[in-house]
């Protein structure tokens, strides 16, 4: 049997997807469904004086209206209890949902929305991190002192997060440094960029429970949250996940699901809510904008001695899943370099904008862009080659992170060397062309996950995992291989079902580059359980000892006696029709770290960390500031590639998302409102913007991961912006310190150096 694991294989869902027969949430059609609409705040900050739905409710076709007056008076719990489903006292961002309507037609729902009478008292708003931190700043949450929060969280006025990592004596080390470099950076916020807008269909069931059809990264978690909020027994709530048209962290938390469900509980018909692209843009859980200042010192020989870094991130009106960005930023700020004296902090602030979220690698692109641009600036100050400076200081096995975690399987050097080589580092280039590098690290994680695998009488194999297939291929590209390898069957014999909380097994969802780590382990354990049972059954049938039996080509075969065999289907038949096994992911404890070095930090050590370097070649037009990326190479340590096709897909996709972050993607605001919710003026990269990408799969196995894997999905989006920025500087002598590095910003950066 050829080794399946580690070979390039197509995805289990590819045929359905190329035929157009794969169904997504907006394709779910239930008879007699009502149309829903969300009414949103027109103000970035206002006091709600009154809400009157009476007139609207009496309009023709209106089935239900939900708002703060008729949903549970509770706060959602994301570490700080600062958010209600619909706000009662204040609206805190333009576009915040204040009510939702279900009606016979979309037009009737619209008419009802227009007839809801809300009296607002507009208040002064806070629209960026400087305004949020200013003395006597208006408060996004005037009642913040009454909020409940978990102990590790920081909350003080507009400040809703503040973590710190400190080691050594930075001031003393800076004083004895031969060069000291200071750089400051700004980050725009951006959308996850999935192409399928949010949608949900919900139906109240005869037992009072709810069924929700959705496209979520986390249907099991969402289900618990929804049941808890509406005081429903969790077993009476069912989430049926569909194919998901991209997610990138934007579909972890519920959005349309909340409003469809709240309405469905008051209707005796299903409720369908499909957001337009514009509405989706108002509720998209964007990547955090913010700023950073770095100040570092080095000895003349290039030894890094000290770094002080400080970030502020704009998390919007509510905490949601925004806290991770600030925690991750400080973990990245000085990595992967040996710097004995570090002082790294990040603050998170409320503003009157929509809730920022966990977009693919939260905090990663921001912190890596700033840190890697800063490292190049240190190299320039030293007159040293940027690759040489990195190689001189990069971590090795046995080094410690800034929080005192002792590191192993450190492949940073290999990723640097291989990515640099791939773009011809050091070779001459034409005028206005340049090369840049950017190196970083990331974590693996493992959530709770359970799986069932069963062999049927016809020899087919069912794989049940609650891991949602959001496009990454973690389910469709990875899980079947693990099962096929364990049972000796063909990939085409395997049926993979989509997540459904009523019929499938629990999974903690897609996020934190965890899917293959957790669902992969669970599914493989279940497959090995089936394997053991198949061998037991085969011992009886073949009258041989199990150690003499191998499973291959869908059969149990006695070694050395190929004619002496039985099909797996026959074994299942002999066992009563099917043979089923179950498995679950192991629990891992976090690696050790030095608690003395951290403050208010919930994520101070990283399990099975990986290392990634992106190298880019650019061409800059100094007249217009336009940047063309002509080549990118990303060398990523994935531990082990179960399906290299899937891994390369993540690297290539991450490279182009990172390119968009670097050059074009930016949510623009005007007096608190987003100007560019549409895809005509929010510029996602197209096929002509994307360069050829070389994916270099580095395999430095982890201790923890199944087959040595490390998390794969997030790292490749973290490194491109720094590589592109450094390449721009190499090409023309200056680069913007703000992402995205738009033509205007590049042009201004060039003007600044030519003025000196």
């Amino acid at each position: 049997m050829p080794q399946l694991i580690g070979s390039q294989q197509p995805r289990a869902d590819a045929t359905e997807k190329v035929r157009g027969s794969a169904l997504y949430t907006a394709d779910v059609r239930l008879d007699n469904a009502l149309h829903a609409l969300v009414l949103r705040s027109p103000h970035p900050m206002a006091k709600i004086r009154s809400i009157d739905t009476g007139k609207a409710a009496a309009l023709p076709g209106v089935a239900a209206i939900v708002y703060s007056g008729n949903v549970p008076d509770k706060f959602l719990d994301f570490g700080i209890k600062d958010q209600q489903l619909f706000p009662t006292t204040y609206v805190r961002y333009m576009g915040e949902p204040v009510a939702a309507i279900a009606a016979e037609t979309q037009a009737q729902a619209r008419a009802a929305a227009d007839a809801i009478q809300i009296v607002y008292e507009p208040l002064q708003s806070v629209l960026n991190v400087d305004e949020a931190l200013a003395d006597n700043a208006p408060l996004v949450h005037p009642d913040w002192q009454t909020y409940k929060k978990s102990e590790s969280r920081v909350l003080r006025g507009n400040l809703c997060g503040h973590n710190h990592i400190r080691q050594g004596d930075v001031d003393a080390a800076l004083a004895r440094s031969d060069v000291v470099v200071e750089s400051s950076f700004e980050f725009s916020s951006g959308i996850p960029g999935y192409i399928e807008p949010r949608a949900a269909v919900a139906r109240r069931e005869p037992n009072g429970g709810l069924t929700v059809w959705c496209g979520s990264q986390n249907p099991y978690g969402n289900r618990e949250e929804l049941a808890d909020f509406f005081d429903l027994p969790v077993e009476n709530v069912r989430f049926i996940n569909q194919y998901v048209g991209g997610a990138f962290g934007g579909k972890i938390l519920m959005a349309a699901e909340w409003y469809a469900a709240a309405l469905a509980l008051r209707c005796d018909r299903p409720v369908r809510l499909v957001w337009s692209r514009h509405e989706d843009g108002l509720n998209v859980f964007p990547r955090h904008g913010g700023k950073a200042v770095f100040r570092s010192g080095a000895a003349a020989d290039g030894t890094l001695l000290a770094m002080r870094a400080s970030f502020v991130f704009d998390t919007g009106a509510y905490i949601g899943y925004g806290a991770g960005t600030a925690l991750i930023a400080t973990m990245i700020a000085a990595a992967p370099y040996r710097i004995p004296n570090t002082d790294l902090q990040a603050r998170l602030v409320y503003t009157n904008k929509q809730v920022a979220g966990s977009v693919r690698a939260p905090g990663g692109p921001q912190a890596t862009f700033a840190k890697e641009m800063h490292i190049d600036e240190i190299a320039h100050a030293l007159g040293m080659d940027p690759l040489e400076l990195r190689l001189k200081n990069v971590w090795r096995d046995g080094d410690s992170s800034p929080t005192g975690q002792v590191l192993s399987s450190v492949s940073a050097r290999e990723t640097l060397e291989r990515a640099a080589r791939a773009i011809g580092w050091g070779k001459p280039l034409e005028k206005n062309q340049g090369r840049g590098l950017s190196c970083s690290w990331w974590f693996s994680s493992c959530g709770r996950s359970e799986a069932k695998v069963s062999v049927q009488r016809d020899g087919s194999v069912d794989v049940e995992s609650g891991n949602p297939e959001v496009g990454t291929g973690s389910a469709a590209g990875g899980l079947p291989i693990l099962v096929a390898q364990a049972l000796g069957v063909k990939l085409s014999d395997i049926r993979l079902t989509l997540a459904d909380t009523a019929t499938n097994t629990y999974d903690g969802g897609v996020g934190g580059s965890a899917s293959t780590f957790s669902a992969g382990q669970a599914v493989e354990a279940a497959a090995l359980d089936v394997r053991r049972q198949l061998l037991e059954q085969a011992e009886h049938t073949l009258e041989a000892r199990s150690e003499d039996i191998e499973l291959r080509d869908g059969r149990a075969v006695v070694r050395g006696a190929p004619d002496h065999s039985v099909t797996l289907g026959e074994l299942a038949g002999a066992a009563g029709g099917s043979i089923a096994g179950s498995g679950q992911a192991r629990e891992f404890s976090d690696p050790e770290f030095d608690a003395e070095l951290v403050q208010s930090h919930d994520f101070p050590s990283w399990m099975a960390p990986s290392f990634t370097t992106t190298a880019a070649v650019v061409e800059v037009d100094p007249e217009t500031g336009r940047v063309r990326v002509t080549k990118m190479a990303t060398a990523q340590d994935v531990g082990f590639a179960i399906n290299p096709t899937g891994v390369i897909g993540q690297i290539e996709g991450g490279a182009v998302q990172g390119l968009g972050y670097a050059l074009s993607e930016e949510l623009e605001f005007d007096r608190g409102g987003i100007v560019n919710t549409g895809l005509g003026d929010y510029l996602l990269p197209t096929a002509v913007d994307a360069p050829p990408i070389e994916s270099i799969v580095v395999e430095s196995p982890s201790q923890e991961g199944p087959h040595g894997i490390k998390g794969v999905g997030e790292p490749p989006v973290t490194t491109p912006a720094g590589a592109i920025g450094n390449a721009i500087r190499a090409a023309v002598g200056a680069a913007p310190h703000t992402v995205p590095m738009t033509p205007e910003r590049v042009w201004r950066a060039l003007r600044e150096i030519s003025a000196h």
Partner: protein
Amino acid sequence: MMQPLRLSVNGRAHQLLVDPVASLLSVLRDDLQLWGTKEGCGTGYCGACTVLVDGDPVNACLLFAVDADQREVTTIEGLAPEKEDLHPLQAAFVARSGLQCGYCTPGVIMSAAALLAENPAPSSDDVRRGLAGNICRCTGYQSIVESVLDAAEQLRKQGRAGETPGRRGRIRSRA
């Protein structure tokens, strides 16, 4: 007031009464239940709703359905009717993993089909330009470009270069 519409979709004639402001996309999805064509933005920027109208790629979200009157529409479902083999483009996207979430895929494949009908031997830059109206957020486009180039080669080998999908053997005519 509803308006009569006659159109052929994937070789099948339809007579419908439609809202004069209904898009071709909504008629395909809501009236004809052809859900393979997706809505990503509704404003003609993402290309997820790309279908062929008389062989030309159009954003179905931008075309009034009544403007497709008397025309031949080909959607992803018509590229390789059920149970037939996959179209070489579809087969190449499977083999090369030119897709991830799959939401943009029907539109990408229809644009690629139109491109190959016009240019049976494109360069990779030609493919990138031909797909510039289709946004894919997952793949970074490289595997898409490789898929299209593979399919082009396959179509040439099969003697099907320049074929307009969904119109095999039919005479191309504009009403």
